[in-house]
C-alpha cells in the first residue's frame, strides 16, 4: 500500500498522507517521489479541479525523517538532498491546480514547508495543532524552501522569529501571523479546505480575509522590512539577539539569518541555492550531529519503560504529595495539569496549605497569561488539587511523593505514617537529591514500594526526572513512576541508588573544583565566564547562588562521607554558609542582589584566602579543571552501574544540569575528545592538584583499548 490515498469530493481530490506502519508522517526522498507521481496523475485527471492535502495520523507531518538525514554523509550530499526537496515543493507550488493543506496536529519542519508550498492552508483549532520550523534545534535550517517562502508569506520579522527560535506556534497565532487562512474545528477541517480549494479553482482570491494588523504593526513592518536600510537594521538586531542567546556555540540560526537575507536581496532562486548550501554545510557540523543524537536519545527515553524486564506500569488514579513548598507545589502542578490526575497535598498547617494552593494557582495563572490555558481550563485543572493538614484522602493514592525537608529521620517518619494510611500497593516516592533511598527503604514495611523521584527546580520548567531505585524496588514500581513522570511531561532516566545518585554526584566535584579555584585566587566572574564559554547556561557560582550555597554544601558533605578524599569540599563553603551567605534566597551570595545586572559581591572575597587580590588564571584551566572532574565522575557512575547507559547519562546531564547540548552530554564529549586525551589531561592535573583527578578505571580501560562509549557514532 502506498503512502497516499486519494478520494474525490466532487471535483476536489482529497489526498491523505498515511505513511504505512509508522506512527507519524515524516519526509524522505521515497515519500517525495511517491507524492510527485500522485501529483502528476491528478494533474492529468480532468475531473480534478483542485486538491486538498491532509494527514491520516494524529499529526500532519512532523518533519524530515531524522534517521534519513543521518545517512547523508557529506555536505554535498546534504546540499543535493535539499535541492531535491526544493524542486519537489516547487513543483507543488507551481502546480496548475490549486492545492490546499488541511492541517491538524503537529505541522513541523518539512511538513510546514510542504504546507507553505500549497496555495492555501486551513488549520484545526485543536491544542495539538502546532506549526513551526524546529530545524535549528537540530543544528540545521529549513532546507526545502522554508527560509524563502515563509518571509514572503508572513513578513521578515515574523518569519525570523519562527526560523531562528525553532519554536512552534498554535493555530490561533498562525492565523494572526497569516500563516494559515482559517482556523476551524477539526470536525469540519477537510470540508472547509475543500471549499477553499474550490474557491481558488473558481479563480477567487484567498477565501478568508487576510489577518488584521494593528497600525503600529503595519508601521513597524513598513519601516523595517520595506526598505534596505530598515532591513539591515532588523537583521543586525536579530543577529545580536541570537548571539547573546547562543553564545556563539550554535551556527545554525546565524546561517538561517544569512540565507533569509540572501533571498530577500538577490531573489528567490538565489535564496534557495544559499539555503541548500547552508543546509549541506550545517548537516555535517559536529553541533548538528550532537543535537540529532540527543534528539534520538530523548526520543528513545520516551519509549523506554525504565526497566529491563517485562514489568508493566500499574495504573495511577491519584497522586498525593507530602509538602507543598516550591518542589511539592510544582509536582502537584505537573500532576494536575500535565498528567491530568487528582492530587492531594499535605502540609503542616493552614498557612502552609494556603501557600501551597497559592503556588499551584500562580503557576496556572501564568499558563493563562501565556494563553496556554483558558480560565475554564484553569478551573478544571485546579479542581484536581486539594490540600489538607492530615492524611485524609491519602488512602486512595497510588503514588505518594514526599517533598519535605532533606532529613532522613523526618522522611522515615513520614514513610511510616504514609504506609499506615495507604493501601498495600501505594508507592512511596521520595523527592530527594541526596538522601539514600536504600537507607530510607530499610525502615519500610513495604520496601519494594519505596523509590526516589528526583525532580529539578523549578519543577514546572525543568524537563528531567531522575527515578532512583534501590536493590529491592519492585520493577513494576519503577515502571509506574517512569510512566507517571512521562505523564507529568518529564524525560525520565532511571538510576540506581548511590550517594548523590547521578546528577548531584557529577555536579559535586565540578562545584568543588570551582571552589578550589576560588581559594587559589581565581576571580568569581572569570570562573563563571569560562564555564559559560564552555556552553553551560550559568557558571558554577551563579548556579550555587540559585540552588542555595547551603544546599550545595550539605550535598558535598554527603558525597565526601561516601567517597572520601576525592570529594573533599574546600572549607570555604562552610564559612560562607555560617556568614548567612546562602545565595539568592538570602539575597546574599557570590553575586549582589541589591543592584540591577549581574555583579559579583566583592565582599565575599574577605572571607577567602587571598582576600580581594585576585589572580589571573588561564581560561583553559578555569574551564578544564571543573569540566574534567564532571566527565570523570560520569564515567564512574556508568562503571558502578548507577547509570543504565551512556545515553541516560548524556540526557540527564543536558536536561538536568544544563550541560551544553551541542556537546551532546558528557559521554559524547569524552568520545569527541578521545579517552586517551582525557586520561592524559587528568593525569596532568593529578600531578599538580592531587588524587581527585585520578582517572576513573573504566576510562583508563577504554583509553587502553581505544574504545568509545558510542562505538557506532562517527
Amino acid at each position, binding site marked *: 500500500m502506498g503512502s497516499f490515498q486519494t478520494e474525490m469530493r466532487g471535483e476536489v481530490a482529497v489526498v491523505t498522507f498515511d505513511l504505512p506502519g509508522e506512527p507519524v508522517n515524516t519526509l524522505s526522498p521515497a515519500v517525495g517521489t511517491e507524492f510527485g507521481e500522485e501529483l502528476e496523475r491528478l494533474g492529468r485527471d480532468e475531473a480534478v479541479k483542485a486538491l486538498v492535502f491532509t494527514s491520516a495520523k494524529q499529526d500532519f507531518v512532523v518533519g524530515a525523517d531524522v534517521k534519513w538525514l543521518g545517512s547523508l554523509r557529506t555536505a554535498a550530499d546534504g546540499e543535493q538532498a535539499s535541492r531535491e526537496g526544493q524542486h519537489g515543493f516547487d513543483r507543488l507550488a507551481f502546480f496548475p491546480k490549486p492545492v490546499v493543506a488541511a492541517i491538524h496536529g503537529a505541522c513541523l519542519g518539512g511538513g510546514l514547508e510542504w504546507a507553505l508550498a500549497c496555495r492555501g492552508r486551513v488549520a484545526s483549532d485543536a491544542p495539538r495543532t502546532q506549526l513551526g520550523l524546529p530545524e535549528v534545534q537540530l543544528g540545521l535550517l529549513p532546507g526545502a524552501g522554508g527560509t524563502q517562502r515563509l518571509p514572503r508569506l508572513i513578513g521578515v520579522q515574523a518569519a525570523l522569529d519562527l526560523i531562528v527560535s525553532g519554536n512552534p506556534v498554535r493555530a490561533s497565532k498562525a492565523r494572526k501571523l497569516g500563516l494559515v487562512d482559517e482556523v476551524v474545528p477539526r470536525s469540519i477541517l477537510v470540508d472547509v479546505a475543500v471549499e477553499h480549494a474550490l474557491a481558488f479553482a473558481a479563480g477567487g482570491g484567498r477565501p478568508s480575509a487576510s489577518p488584521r494588523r494593528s497600525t503600529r504593526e503595519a508601521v513597524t513592518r513598513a519601516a523595517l522590512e520595506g526598505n534596505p536600510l530598515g532591513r539591515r537594521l532588523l537583521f543586525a538586531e536579530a543577529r545580536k539577539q541570537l548571539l547573546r542567546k547562543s553564545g556563539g556555540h550554535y551556527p545554525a540560526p546565524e546561517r538561517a539569518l544569512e540565507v533569509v537575507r540572501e533571498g530577500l536581496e538577490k531573489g528567490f532562486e538565489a535564496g534557495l541555492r544559499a539555503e541548500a548550501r547552508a543546509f549541506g554545510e550545517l548537516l555535517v557540523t559536529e553541533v548538528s550531529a550532537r543535537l540529532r543524537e540527543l534528539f534520538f536519545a530523548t526520543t528513545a527515553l520516551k519509549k523506554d519503560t525504565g526497566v529491563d524486564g517485562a514489568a508493566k506500569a500499574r495504573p495511577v488514579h491519584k497522586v498525593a504529595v507530602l509538602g507543598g513548598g516550591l518542589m511539592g507545589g510544582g509536582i502537584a502542578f505537573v500532576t494536575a495539569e500535565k498528567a491530568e490526575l487528582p492530587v492531594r497535598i499535605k502540609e503542616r498547617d493552614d498557612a502552609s496549605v494556603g501557600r501551597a494552593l*497559592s503556588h499551584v494557582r500562580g503557576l496556572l495563572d501564568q499558563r493563562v497569561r501565556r494563553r496556554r490555558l483558558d480560565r475554564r481550563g484553569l478551573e478544571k485543572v485546579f479542581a484536581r488539587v486539594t490540600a489538607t493538614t492530615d492524611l485524609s*484522602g491519602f488512602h486512595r493514592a497510588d503514588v505518594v511523593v514526599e517533598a519535605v525537608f532533606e532529613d532522613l529521620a523526618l522522611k522515615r517518619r513520614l514513610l511510616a505514617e504514609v504506609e499506615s494510611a495507604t493501601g498495600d500497593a501505594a508507592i512511596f516516592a521520595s523527592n530527594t537529591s541526596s538522601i539514600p533511598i536504600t537507607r530510607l527503604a530499610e525502615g519500610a514495611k513495604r520496601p519494594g514500594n519505596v523509590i526516589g523521584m528526583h525532580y529539578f527546580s523549578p519543577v514546572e520548567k525543568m524537563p528531567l526526572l531522575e527515578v532512583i531505585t534501590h536493590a529491592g524496588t519492585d520493577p513494576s514500581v519503577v515502571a509506574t513512576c517512569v510512566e507517571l513522570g512521562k505523564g507529568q511531561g518529564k524525560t525520565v532516566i532511571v538510576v540506581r541508588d548511590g550517594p548523590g545518585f547521578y546528577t548531584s554526584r557529577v555536579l559535586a566535584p565540578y562545584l568543588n573544583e570551582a571552589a578550589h579555584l576560588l581559594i587559589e585566587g581565581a576571580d568569581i566572574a572569570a570562573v563563571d565566564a569560562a564555564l559559560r564559554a564552555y556552553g553551560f547556561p550559568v557558571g558554577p557560582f551563579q548556579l550555587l547562588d540559585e540552588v542555595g550555597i547551603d544546599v550545595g554544601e550539605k550535598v558535598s558533605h554527603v558525597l565526601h562521607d561516601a567517597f572520601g578524599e576525592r570529594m573533599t569540599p574546600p572549607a570555604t563553603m562552610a564559612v560562607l554558609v555560617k556568614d548567612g551567605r546562602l545565595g539568592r534566597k538570602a539575597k546574599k551570595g557570590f553575586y549582589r542582589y541589591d543592584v540591577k545586572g549581574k555583579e559579583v559581591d566583592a565582599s565575599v572575597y574577605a572571607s577567602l584566602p587571598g582576600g580581594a587580590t585576585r589572580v589571573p588564571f588561564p581560561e583553559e584551566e578555569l574551564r578544564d579543571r571543573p569540566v574534567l572532574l564532571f566527565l570523570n565522575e560520569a564515567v564512574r557512575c556508568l562503571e558502578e552501574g548507577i547509570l543504565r547507559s551512556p545515553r541516560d547519562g548524556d540526557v540527564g546531564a543536558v536536561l538536568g544540569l544544563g550541560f551544553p547540548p551541542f556537546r551532546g552530554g558528557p559521554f559524547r564529549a569524552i568520545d569527541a575528545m578521545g579517552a586517551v586525551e582525557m586520561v592524559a589531561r587528568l593525569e596532568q592535573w593529578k600531578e599538580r592538584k592531587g588524587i581527585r583527578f585520578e582517572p576513573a578505571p573504566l576510562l583508563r580501560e577504554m583509553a587502553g583499548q581505544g574504545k568509545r562509549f558510542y562505538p557506532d557514532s562517527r
Partner: protein
Amino acid sequence: MAQRLIGLRGTTRAVVVKGLRTPFVRAGGVFGSLTSLDLGAAVVRELVERADIDPAEIDQIVFGQAIPTLLAPSIAREVGLASALPRATEAHTVSRACATSIQAFTDVASAMALGVSQVAVAGGTESMSDVPIFTSRPLSRALVKASRARTLPERVRAFAGLKPKDIVPVPPAIAEYSTGLTMGQSAEKMAKENHVSRTWQDEIALASHQRAAAAWKDGVFDAQVMHVPIPPAYTATGTTDDIVRHDSSLEALAKLKPVFDKVHGSVTAGNSSPLTDGAAALLVMREDRAKALGLQPLGALRAFAYAATDPGDQLLQGPAYAAPVALERAGMTLKDIDLVEMHEAFAAQVASNLQAFASPEFARKIGRSAPIGEVDPDRLNVHGGSIALGHPFGATGARIVMQALDALARRDKRTALCTVCAAGGLGAAIVLERV
C-alpha cells in the same frame, strides 16, 4: 391515614456515611469574596476526599440554594463539575427555601428506595455575600424592550418614562411574595399571637450560643467543619463559625433593641439567625452499598414528611405540621425520640413550635387526636442551633442532619427528629436512626 414509606426500611434505605460543612460565617466576612458555587464545590471536593471513596461510585449529586446564583442556575451540576466529580455524575438542583438541603437529602433517599440511585451527594450552599442584585421592574421591562428594538430611536424610546428611582438596583427581599411580610415581621407576629415573651426568646438564644460555644470548645465540630483556604491569595483561611459567641449572657441579649417592631416588638438581632455564608454536604448511599464498600454509616433516614400552612397565618409554624406525620411514618411517637434538632430561624419561631408540639388545641386544629408532646429542653439542639451557628439557607438542612447523627453517636443514643421551617409556610421533618 398513616402512610408508611416501606422503602425506608430494609437494605435499600439510605444511610449517611459522612457529612461535612464549611465554617458558617457572617455575610461579608471571610467568605466575602466567594460565591455559592465556590463554597459548594469546596465542601463536596473535600467530602469526597475525606470519605476516601472512588468518586466514580457517586451516581448523582443533588444540591440547592434558596437564592439562586443567576450565572449558574443549575447549581448542582456546577458544583459537581467544579468539585471534580466525574463528568458522568448526573445532577439536579433543588429548592425548598430554608429546607433546601433536607429536600436534597430526601430526594436522594427516595431515589435509593426506588432503586434508581446507589451513592449520592446531597447538600446545599448559600452566599449572602453574593446575592443577585436586580433592576427594578420598569427598568428591566425597558431593557428587554430595547434589546428587541431594531433601530436606534426605537431603542432610545424604550427608556422613555423611566423615573430616577427605577434606575436604583434592587436586592432580593427576604419577604413572602404572597403576603409581603418579611421573615422578621412574621416572627414578630408569631411572638405576639403566641404570647412568647422576650425573656423566653433570649433564653433560647442564650442556650444556642452556650451549647454551640461548648461544642466548639470540646472539639465536637472538628470533624464536621472543614477549613477553607480563601482564593485568590490563600493567605486567609476560614476555620471556624464566627457568629457563635463564647461570652453571651441574658443581660447582654436583653439590651438589644427590637428590630422589626421598635415599639412593641421582642424580636432582636440577638434572638434571630443572621445572614450567613456557608455550604454543607452529605455522602449518602444505600445501606447495602455502604456495606459492600466497607463503610460504617453514621445513621439512616427512617421517615420524612413535608407540610404547608397558610403563609398569611403563622408563617414559620411548618415543623409543627410536618413532625407528627414524619413520626407516624416512622412508626414512632416523641417518646421514642432521643434528640430533637430544630432549625432556629428565630427564637420566637422555636418557642411557637414547641408550644404547638405540646398543645392539645393545636392538635385539634390540625385534626389530630393528641399533641406531639413536650420537648425536653435538654434534648433539643444539644450542640447549638442556627441562631448561634448561623443560617446559610441552602446549607442548614445538611448541617442539622450531620449534627444530629454526630450528637447521637456521642451520647450513644438511637433516634433523632429534625425539623426545619421554610418560607411559604412550609415545614420539613425527618426521623433519623443510628444503624
